[in-house]
């Protein structure tokens, strides 16, 4: 029976991982704490609602994050870019305001009521896997998120762009001195981070429904995951995301009153014992 919970925690965790990775990449590279992450997550789900009849679920799974990423990149070029040279607080304030603007825009455009979003026919229902029965759609999200994580790892570790991003994350000045322009890289990274949030939004829409404030809960969890994993750490976000998924699931099984607090308790313990997070390192730029 316990295995069922552990497997389920894994599925819950991978969604946290995707959202947290986006947050972590943006913070690591640009130094902006993206408070609008949850809003972009919701936006991804809303574009999916809008386009699902024309494109089908597979279509929106790709197109919706793409649209949101383009929107994000536009916002980066038009506004966010101007704030990099100033106080780091500016970026935080800007994205905080942006989150409210996006949420209200969603209310204006799509209304305050939620939208139904059905699980695709082929993925509806439960299948037996070994000793237990599990939801087909959740298995599908697990496969999706695992693919994304592997793809992202390959992109960051094995491609030229990935190398520049990783170098730029640690020492942007040195990268500039090597003659590599970082402006377009910043835009790309912001777009990529946002796309991950939007993708998680689309994936969770059939599970939790679509409504304007849907991103708030997961964004908070993503902040916790990034803190536990260590700021800017790729593997940290993954380990911490899965850990949070497990702890939430298992605490519901064994200690229901603590379900909501469990991830914060974990965060407090980690911060007390490893102030830089599980896999976080001392980065000069964050000190």
């Amino acid at each position: 029976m316990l295995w069922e919970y552990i497997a389920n925690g894994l599925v819950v965790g991978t969604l946290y991982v995707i959202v947290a990775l986006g947050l972590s990449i943006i913070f690591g590279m640009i130094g902006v704490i993206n408070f609008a992450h949850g809003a972009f997550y919701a936006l991804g789900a809303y574009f999916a609602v809008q386009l699902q009849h024309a494109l089908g679920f597979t279509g929106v799974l790709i197109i919706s994050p793409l649209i949101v990423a383009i929107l994000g990149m536009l916002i980066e070029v038009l506004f966010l870019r101007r704030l990099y040279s100033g106080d780091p607080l500016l970026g935080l304030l800007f994205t905080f305001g942006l989150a409210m603007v996006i949420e209200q825009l969603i209310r204006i455009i799509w209304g305050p009521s939620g939208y139904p979003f059905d699980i695709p026919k082929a993925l509806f229902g439960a299948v037996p896997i070994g000793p237990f029965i599990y939801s087909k759609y959740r298995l599908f999200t697990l496969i999706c998120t695992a693919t994304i994580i592997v793809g992202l790892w390959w992109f960051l570790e094995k491609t030229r762009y990935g190398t520049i991003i990783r170098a730029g994350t640690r020492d942007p000045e040195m990268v500039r001195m090597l003659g590599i322009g970082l402006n377009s890289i910043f835009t790309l990274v912001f777009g990529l981070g946002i796309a991950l949030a939007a993708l998680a939004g689309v994936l969770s829409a059939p599970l939790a429904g679509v409504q304007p404030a849907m991103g708030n809960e997961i964004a908070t969890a993503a902040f916790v995951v990034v803190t536990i994993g260590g700021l800017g750490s790729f593997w940290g976000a993954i380990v911490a995301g899965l850990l949070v998924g497990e702890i939430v699931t298992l605490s519901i099984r064994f200690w229901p009153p603590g379900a909501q607090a469990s991830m914060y308790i974990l965060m407090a313990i980690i911060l007390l014992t490893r102030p830089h997070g599980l896999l976080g390192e001392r980065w000069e730029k964050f000190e």
Partner: protein
Amino acid sequence: MLKEKQESESSNLYGLTRREWLKATGKLGAAAAIGSFGKPLFSKVFAAEPIKIGHITPRTGFLGQIGAYAVMGVQLAVEEANARGGVLGRPIEVVYEDSVNPGTAVQKARKLIEKDKVVALVGEISSASTLAIGEVAQEAGIPFINTGANSDEIRGTKCHRYVFSTEGSNTMYVNAIGQWLIKNQKFSKWYFLTADYAFGHDLYRVSKKLLLEHGGTELGNDMIPTNTPDYSPYILKLKSVNPDLLFLNLAGVDQTTFLKQYKEFGAPFETAGGVMDTVQFWAAGPDAITGVWPSLWYHGIDVPAAKEFTARFMKKFEKPPDNQAWSDYVAMQIILQAIEKTGGTQSKDLVKFLESGVEFEIYKGRPGKFREWDHQLMQPLYVVKVKPKAQMKDPWDIFEVLEEIPGKNESLETIMMKKEEGCKLEPL
């Protein structure tokens, strides 16, 4: 250079240049002049002073989806009243406020009473906000009709002389679904899932009492935080417990999100619940919903007046009214009728009229009236069951109405709270 700068600064000491100061003064003077001479003259000749009513309900946050329907209900009621020439020859004006949370609700209620000078308050969904507004209304002596909050205390230990409820109490909902469950012999082993705040706790208390009174067993209960996005661990737990019936004390988005994920895991157990909001069920979609539920009002009931109301509502908003739109529409009609019949807006007269046992059209096939000693609207509820998807004719046609409770010939008192439960109204 330096001198120039100083000069320009000194002229801006109060953020104004001399010219701007003069302009502003001129405008103020003009406004005052129009205000003192123009207003009484024009308003007396061309229009009678409007009667102002405050509508306060959550329009953002997790109850915002329902609040939007409440506003529609009020809009229709006021539009219809004004089309008939208003009340006492005066037009009706509604001041709308988003109550957000109990703290803000208190401030907004005060603002509506003190600044806007409304003669009555209508609205709310959150029980916590309703209790807070009730205090303000009682203190100010302004009638307040609660249209959406369920907690028993609002009509029980914390009832007020100036507070009336068109919304049913948790006891009424649970007794309605309970009577149906008794008839269909569903009392055996139950598992509860309960929303972890005042409303859920209250509902759990009442539903558990009902189960134990009828010889059933409680297999367990989980308190669930609001806005939980993922219910899979609870569903897994449920499967290991294996109850005969799952009883939900959830509300709002939480309820439909749960149902959706529950169906995803095959919805293995029969499901019923203490409270149901139609809007949330519409939003979840036909694939995601299941179970037997109590309903305050549903547009599919077989009552001619309800059908006419639905048609008028659909004409204006292109969708049918839900239970919340119904409640705010009815409350608005009731307060307007009270003003009409008492011939004025004296709050003591309004309260006396409302508690006098006078009957109102409530689109349920039999008239409703406020119970004298706790100000709860006496009315039947409905037990509805989610239809199979193939039988739904449109996106709103989701329920089969199983039964009206209490039945046509039974007393409406049978589902209501008992006098021992503690309501003592203040003297007027």
